[in-house]
């Protein structure tokens, strides 16, 4: 379980072309990591693929930070 954050981090770094140091749990995808709405859709698709889960559309909208993503993924794998 502890590697969920690391796996999320890797996806975020690859998808958003950002420095790994910036990808902390409190980081907002849009405000801190420069994502736009299309980036977020692609990110969620990458999470779904990596963890073999489905993240419903209404939940997607509540995932704002790296920590939100980690919390949701941990609860569903």
């Amino acid at each position, binding site marked *: 379980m502890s590697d969920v954050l690391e796996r999320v981090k890797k996806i975020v770094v*690859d*998808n*958003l*072309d950002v420095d790994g140091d910036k990808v902390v749990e409190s980081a907002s995808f849009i405000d801190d990591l420069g994502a736009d709405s*299309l980036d977020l*859709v*692609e990110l969620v*698709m990458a999470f*779904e693929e990596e963890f073999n889960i*489905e993240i419903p559309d209404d939940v997607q909208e509540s995932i704002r930070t790296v920590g939100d993503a980690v919390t949701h993924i941990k609860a569903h794998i």
Partner: protein
Amino acid sequence: MSDRRVVITGIGIVSPLANGREATWERLIDGKSGAGRIDTFDPEDMPCKIAFQVPWVTGRGGGEGDPNAFDPDKYLSPKEIRRIDEFILYAIAAADEAVEDAAWKPEDDEGQERTGVLIGSGIGGLESIYSTAITLHENGPRKVSPFFIPSALINLASGQVSIRHKFKGPNHSVVTACATGAHAIGDSARLIKFGDADVMVAGGSEAVIGRIGIAGFCAAKAMSTNFNDTPEKASRPYDKDRDGFVMGEGAAVVVLEEYEHAKARGAKIYAEVSGYGLTGDAYHITAPAEGAEGGYRAMKMALKNSGIDPTEIDYVNAHGTSTPKGDEGEAGAVERAFGDHAKNMSMSSTKSAVGHLLGAAGAIETAFCALAIRDQVMPPTLNLDNPSFETVLDLIPHKAKKGRVRAAMSNSFGFGGTNASLVLKEVQ
């Protein structure tokens, strides 16, 4: 029409001969061919297994260390590359080179708002559509990328280039099959003449050498199938053994500029875009009208509004796709349009060396006309061993020809019966 004149002040080229304007031109004049066996997929089940691919650092006839190879990492990050179709990638690269060549980087609002972009494509993101259709079919709608639509839309070449360079003037696109590049340049010149912009970044881009693109054109019986083992011999306009076109890919973009604007900032000028004609065949979806009647009228219109004497045209860059029917019709139409002067003229088809770039063809061929005027040399028609017909035109077989080029014409004809002719002339 207004008396505003339009000149070319920058040229960018990504071609099957090389990435870059000067390398492409040098290899073209040297008589090199960019043809080879398709290596981006296994073409074994295709009737046509060859194409003119842009050499990449990763293959397609290029490789690491090849100075002429295209390296996408020089232009965009891996993330950005993943999110655009290759036709947009080529457009961005060609536009970068053209803008740098023109040394036009407006920082102020007025400069940015008076600069527009008009880059077209014949087909656009066909490969993206193809691969996404497979994903949708196999894995359902949740697996469709949010970047699919903006990677496939044809006007996103213009959109991406405008975002990259902050060009906030007219943002437009053209889709007229194999006449796209010529229409893009002709229409852009008119936008400048009309006063909507002072500078236009104009051209065409295409990247459909994939399974669906090749299969589609093969089904239409438009492509060469007799030269799969000798790819460099396949594109042979006017030759009696020609049997269809050979697909190319790449992009060409020119910077068009209002003459006084260019002069005021001391810009280098390649040539003036002085004439533009455009017509429809109203005849057939893929076959040209008898005697290239529509092409003939496009040439006459371009000559008329260029304001020059037709005897000043020394060189014609032909549409000349290497199809049995099209080549002879066009040559006859050129002879008819120029009358007695035809015997003094030279005409070549550079599709023999770079292939048919479809929506980028008219743009790269117009760029070649501008370079012919700059260097006073005309590129050859490769593989023209035995012409299938008699003509008074010098078709420049095999070897480039040095000679006076005061003005040049570029012809482009497309599926649907759409025709465009451009006249370029030297600026003294």
